[in-house]
């Protein structure tokens, strides 16, 4: 179990860095079709920022920002976004994840629709990866027993 330490240097530096890391992660997710990166990499960076928060503040404070239930919910929502876009392509008579067919639905050119579809899938993947990384780290660091589970 990780508790908060009154280490001034690490606490202050991570306090300043965490918003920038999160924004950078979202940048990597959103610009995945122009530059290196994408859903998985951005999700890993976002998860790393959450892990940094957990490491420096301890779970007692981190749970107000990102509790474990929300992490579980987000991992499911990410997979839902991913699979939902794939199934949507099936419904408009394409293959699974065949974004080009979404052009009729979104009323744009096929190439633009492909770009938008990839963006949506990457957001889903990013959500899922972020919350799964966070959950795995939390489970390993606590041995699977969270404080609120112990109280019950």
């Amino acid at each position, binding site marked *: 179990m990780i508790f908060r330490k009154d280490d*001034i240097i690490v606490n202050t530096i991570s306090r300043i860095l965490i*918003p920038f890391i*999160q*924004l950078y992660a979202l*940048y990597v997710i959103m610009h995945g079709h122009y530059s290196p990166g994408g859903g998985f990499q951005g999700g890993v960076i976002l998860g790393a920022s959450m892990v940094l928060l957990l490491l420096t503040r301890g779970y007692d404070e981190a749970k107000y*920002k990102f509790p474990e239930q929300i992490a579980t919910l987000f991992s499911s929502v990410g997979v839902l976004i991913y699979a939902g876009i794939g199934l949507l392509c099936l419904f408009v008579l394409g293959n699974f994840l065949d974004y080009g067919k979404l052009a009729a639905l979104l009323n744009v050119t096929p190439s633009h629709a492909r770009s938008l579809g990839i963006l949506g899938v990457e957001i889903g993947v990013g959500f899922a990866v972020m919350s799964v990384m966070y959950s795995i780290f939390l489970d390993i660091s606590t041995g699977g027993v969270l404080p609120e589970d112990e109280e019950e």
Partner: protein
Amino acid sequence: MEVTLLIQAADESFRLLEKARGQAVDLLNTAVKLTSDTRSVEERKLQTFLSSGQDAKSGFQNFIATFVMLFAFWALLSGKFDLFHLSLGFICTFVISYLSHDLLFANVRVGDIRVIIQRFIIYMPWLMYQIITANVHVAYLALSPKMPIDPQVMRFKTKLESDISWVTLANSITLTPGTITMDIHEGEFVVHALSQKVADDLDTGEMEDRVAHVFMEADHIYIQDVLDVARIFGEMRRAA
């Protein structure tokens, strides 16, 4: 005859002493009253300043500051300024600054942020110069066959006040080769130094003074002290 003269002289001197003592007590009282007046005024000013900071912390201003900063960072990263990417950036920045607006500006600042940034930019070249000279020294230590090192742990109390200036000083010390900040405990720095020369360089306290100058610490206290003393002196001169 002589005895009465002596008694008279003693009485006279006692009266004089009494008078002088009364004057001194009056003077001291006025001085104390003046300082306490100025102190209370200063404290009230500081209190309003701090409470406004507290309000801003819980309120909207902090969020806006974080938002502007992060959006500038996004524009720097993205480099695409069409409507689609700007709106994406707007949404992302909004979400992040909503989630972590209490992180970036967590403590109440003492000085003006613009002056701090300006002074920090001036501080950087000096730090670079320090790093380069210390680098040459450490390279000499490592390459000379006798290896004239003298590792030591030194402790010193700092005069800095806020945690951000502590962190800046600690990171400056760590960035300079040869010295590493091991811990900060209640304002006491524990620094490991590789040789006597770098320890002496750190002991002069120039880096600490410069960091205090960057974060506008110590100079406002100094000015306040001068003003206090000037008022007390003026009062004393008028009484005299």
